[in-house]
C-alpha cells in the first residue's frame, strides 16, 4: 500500500520519452503519405470551481468531487462531433493513476457515477470488450508520456497499424490530463 487505496501498480512510472503529432489541414493531409486521422472534436476546460488550480480541490462542488473533471469536456466533445458513447470504438485515457481512468469513464458516460470499478472489472476495457482502453499500455504500462502517446495510439488504431489492433477502429476517444483544471479531450476519426 502506498496511499490507501492505491498500491504500487496504481501509479505510473517516470519516463524519458519523445514523440510528436503532426497536425495539418484535411486538404493537405490527403496528399501526405500516411493515412490521416481527423479531429472530429477537441475541447479543453473544467466545470465551475473544479480543482481551483489544484490547491483547493477539496472545496469543489459535490457533483465533480469524485471525478476526473471531464464532465463539461465530454458534453462539448459529443456536441461538436455529433457522436455519442456508442460511436466510440476505443478510448485512450490519461492514466497517471488507475482511479482517474475509472472516473474519466464515468465522466464520459460509459458507466454510471461510482460504477467505474465494476465496469472495468467486468472486462469491458479489454481488447475484446466493447470499449478497449489504452491498447498501447498507457502511462501505467508503456511510459509516462503525459498523454502524448495516447494521441499516437489513437492515430495508429485508426490507420490500422497498432500492435494491439482493434478490427475496424474508426472513432477513438482521447482523454487528456485527468484531475487538474483545465482538462482536455479529443475525438479522432478515420471517417471523413
Amino acid at each position, binding site marked *: *500500500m*502506498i*496511499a*490507501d*487505496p492505491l498500491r504500487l501498480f496504481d501509479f505510473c512510472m517516470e519516463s524519458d520519452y519523445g514523440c510528436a503529432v503532426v497536425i495539418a489541414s484535411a486538404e493537405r493531409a490527403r496528399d501526405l503519405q500516411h493515412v490521416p486521422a481527423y479531429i472530429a472534436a477537441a475541447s479543453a476546460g473544467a466545470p465551475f*470551481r473544479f480543482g481551483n488550480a489544484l*490547491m*483547493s480541490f*477539496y*472545496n469543489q*462542488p459535490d457533483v465533480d468531487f469524485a471525478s476526473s473533471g471531464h464532465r463539461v469536456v465530454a458534453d462539448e466533445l459529443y456536441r461538436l462531433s455529433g457522436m455519442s458513447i456508442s460511436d466510440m470504438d476505443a478510448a485512450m485515457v490519461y492514466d497517471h493513476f488507475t482511479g482517474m481512468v475509472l472516473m474519466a469513464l464515468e465522466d464520459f458516460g460509459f458507466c454510471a457515477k461510482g460504477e467505474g470499478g465494476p465496469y472495468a472489472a467486468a472486462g469491458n476495457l479489454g481488447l475484446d470488450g466493447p470499449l478497449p482502453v489504452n491498447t498501447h499500455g498507457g502511462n501505467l504500462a508503456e511510459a509516462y508520456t503525459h498523454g502524448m502517446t495516447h494521441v499516437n495510439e489513437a492515430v495508429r488504431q485508426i490507420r490500422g497499424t497498432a500492435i494491439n489492433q482493434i478490427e475496424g477502429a474508426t472513432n477513438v476517444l482521447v482523454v487528456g490530463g485527468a484531475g487538474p483544471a483545465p482538462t482536455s479531450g479529443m475525438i479522432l476519426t478515420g471517417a471523413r
Partner: protein
Amino acid sequence: MSDQMPGLPGPAPDPTTGGYWLAAGRGELVVQVCSACGTHRHPPTEVCYVCNSLDWTWAPHDGRGTVFTYTWTDRPVVPGLAHLGVYNVSVVELDGTTGVVRILTRVTDVERDDLVVGLPVEVHFDPAGATLDGEGVALPLFRPRAVR
C-alpha cells in the same frame, strides 16, 4: 516547521492568508467570509466565487465539523513526515457555514479503523513557530469529538 512536523516548512502568512494562520496561533479557528454576500470560503482568496466581491473579513468558527474524506499514507511523501509513521490526510467539512467549507488537514488521536466518513471532529492546534514580527502561527488539526 511545527511541533508535530518539525521536518516541514511552516505556514508563510501573506496578506490574504495571514489572518488564518495568526488566528490559529492564538488558538482560534477563523474562516474567510464575503462582506457582500456572506458566503464563507476556504482557502482564503481575494475574490468571492459567488458574487465576485473583493471585500471580506474573518469570521470566528467553533471548530466543529465532520470528516468528508480521507486517505492513509503508508509511505511518507517527504522525510519530514517519516516520524509520523502511517498518517492520514483528511478533508474536514465545517459545521454551520454559509456555503460548504472544507479544510485539508489531519485527524489526530484516531486509529486507522476508526477514521470514517462522517466522523464528528473538533479542531485543535499544532504550534508552528512565529512570524518575523514574533506572532505565533499554528496548523489547525482535528480530533474525534463526543456528540451529545
